[in-house]
């Protein structure tokens, strides 16, 4: 029973919609963080990195292991420090893992047909999933609630909890940092140059492999950071969570125009909103379906996405 009628009235209420928007934006910014990893890697090597979602999952596994090792959480400032530490550690872990996978698996396939690394990345995704299975077991694991779910707003029916605040506090600086990095630093420029034309970039002295490595690392770092925020807000980790998050994130990247960094951010937010509002209107279970309907519509009408450039094949 998707919607019993008494709810139809609540759906109409403004507060309810506002609440769904808050939820949508919070989950959307997490999706955006993961989507950035897709879009950056795609921009630089043209690979849909299928394993990205599962990398995110492994970050969550590490987070839960670290937190359990560290013992029961304390309230207040130590929790914030702990989360910051986790973000950095899991980010480094995922970044390093992503880099290692690139060197081991994708790099030998640079000259192969484009689908070869894609298929390999499906393989990596499965290996990651198996790793996660061994790591945290087949059933869902509870992540200790480091951040309380208390309402920060003075309303009854509109909630913005400390957890939502955490999402904002981590995602916004990370994205700002990324923007600065890509726009203004030397390596960021090199990255954009490689994305434009790897051969030309190599000719002007850019170390293409180094840039690719840095991209994989950065993408992985963001996924690791996202996984910590995810774990702290959703407080459940499961070895299969990477698949769906990855799919949403990929959809976000395509929606925004794969290869475009602002595109991924906007795409992520839109997907989060579509998911929350669509789910609220048509029933929770259809939320996933709605997201893919959006994906198909985008690909039919604007395959290059909202911010993407049209890709041209060289003949």
């Amino acid at each position, binding site marked *: 029973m998707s919607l019993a009628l008494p709810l139809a009235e609540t759906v109409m209420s403004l507060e309810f919609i506002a609440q769904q928007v808050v939820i949508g934006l919070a989950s959307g910014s997490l999706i955006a963080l993961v989507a950035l990893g897709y879009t950056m890697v795609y921009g630089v090597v043209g690979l849909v990195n299928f394993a990205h979602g599962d990398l995110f999952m492994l970050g969550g596994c590490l987070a839960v292991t670290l937190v359990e090792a560290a013992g029961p959480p304390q309230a207040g400032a130590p929790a914030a420090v702990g989360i910051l530490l986790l973000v950095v550690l899991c980010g480094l872990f995922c970044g390093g893992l992503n880099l290692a996978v690139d060197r081991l698996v994708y790099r030998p396939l640079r000259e192969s047909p484009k689908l070869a690394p894609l298929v390999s990345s499906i393989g990596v995704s499965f290996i990651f999933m198996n790793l996660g299975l061994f790591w945290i077991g087949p059933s869902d694991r509870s992540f200790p609630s480091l951040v309380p779910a208390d309402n920060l707003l003075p309303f009854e029916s509109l909630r913005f909890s400390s957890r939502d605040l955490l999402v904002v506090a981590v995602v916004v600086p990370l994205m700002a940092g990324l923007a600065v990095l890509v726009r203004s630093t030397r390596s960021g420029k090199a990255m954009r140059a490689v994305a434009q034309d790897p051969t030309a970039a190599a000719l002007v002295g850019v170390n293409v492999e180094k840039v690719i490595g840095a991209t994989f690392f950065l993408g992985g770092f963001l996924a690791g950071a996202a996984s910590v925020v995810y774990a702290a807000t959703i407080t459940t980790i499961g070895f299969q969570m990477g698949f769906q998050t990855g799919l949403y994130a990929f959809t976000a990247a395509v929606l925004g125009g794969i290869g475009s960094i602002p595109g991924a951010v906007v795409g992520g937010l839109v997907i989060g909103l579509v998911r929350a509002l669509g789910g609220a209107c048509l029933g929770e279970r259809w939320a996933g379906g709605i997201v893919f309907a959006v994906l198909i519509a985008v690909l*039919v009408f604007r395959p290059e996405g909202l911010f993407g450039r049209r890709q*041209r094949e060289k*003949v």
Partner: protein
Amino acid sequence: MVRFPRRRRDRSLEQTAADPLLSVDRLTVRFGGLVAVADLDLDVEQGAIASLIGPNGAGKTTAFNCISGINRPTRGTVRLDGRRVARPFTPVAFWGIVAIGLLTGLLVAAVAIDIDGVWLAVVKRPMAAGEPPRAATLGRRLRSYFRWELAVDRLGASWRVVTPDGREVVAIRRSREDASRLRDALQAAVTARRAGPGTVPEATDFGDAADAVHAVDGEVLDRLAAGKRAIRLRGWTALAAGWLVGAAGGYAVWRRGRRSPEVVAAAGIARTFQNIRLFEGMTALENVRVGLDWGHRGSRRIDDPEQVATEILAKVGLAGEAGRRAGELAYGDRRRLEIARALATRPRLLLLDEPTAGMNPAETAAVAELIRQIRDSGVTVLLIEHHMQTVMRVSDRVSVLDHGVKIAEGTPREIRRDERVIKAYLGEAEA
């Protein structure tokens, strides 16, 4: 000499010998800020060998790509025999798009009217009531759904009066008879509400279900009464919206394929590629067979395609390589196989993109001879070539491109003398 399979001669070939076979009009291609081709006019006469030359990056290949439908020009037209090379918007395409729209509309409507509820009303409920649905009753049940008539469903040990989609329970009774009686009474009340406020039936009209009907909230009755309009509105809106989106999507996809290479090929223009693009995994013979199978689809069926394909291979000098994989062939053979594959489509116009690139003088001469033979068999040729000797030897007319702009046109002899050409191109090339 093997006879080359000629396309059926159509009238246009004879009567309009004076009109150009290919005419390119003000073709412009921009990539971002870069103008690759600017206002190119180009005519190729029937039965001629025309050449397009120019330094690297002059826009020759881009022009070729536009003619063969690979790139979409920013502006300008390409005509073959005075007709634009594009898939016409035929009634078939129109109805196809309409049908796709309808299908999408139906899908969206299925979600909107809750196809699951329809299935319950049309298939499962009668089944549970012991009256398996038959085609005859199908229409009636559907209509009843869209009239939003109440129904009786069993759940567990109880019987419930529910909306037709089974999602809202209005009342619960212990026996089926009770529930049916209540349903009828409620339905009467709902119908009366629909008719307007003044037409509420007397309580006594409901017989022994009167108490139960009065127990149901007036608001609920209003909502049930409004259900009919709501479901129809939702259904039609969804159908219309889905139809619009689907038809628009169908049109977008159709449009994107409007001037695709296959349309151009079907119209009678074949081409080769600068960087050879063979079907590497297939044999030489199979490469040619694909061209024969699909090229120029208007023509008659070939009785023995295997034989014809072998003849075409022989014509380009690859008789002995028929069974070899294209990827294994020697470089020169690969170029010639590409020409053979293009010829197999029985084109009227053949676009050759640097057919002698990377060849030794003997091979080059052989290809030049082959080009002439092709022309003699009735196929018009447009050539991009860097090897000037070949160009000057085989061409009837030469056009020169520089930075996307046509700077000269004429017979080889005229071009050789043209100041601008020498300055822009020949001077450095022959140095």
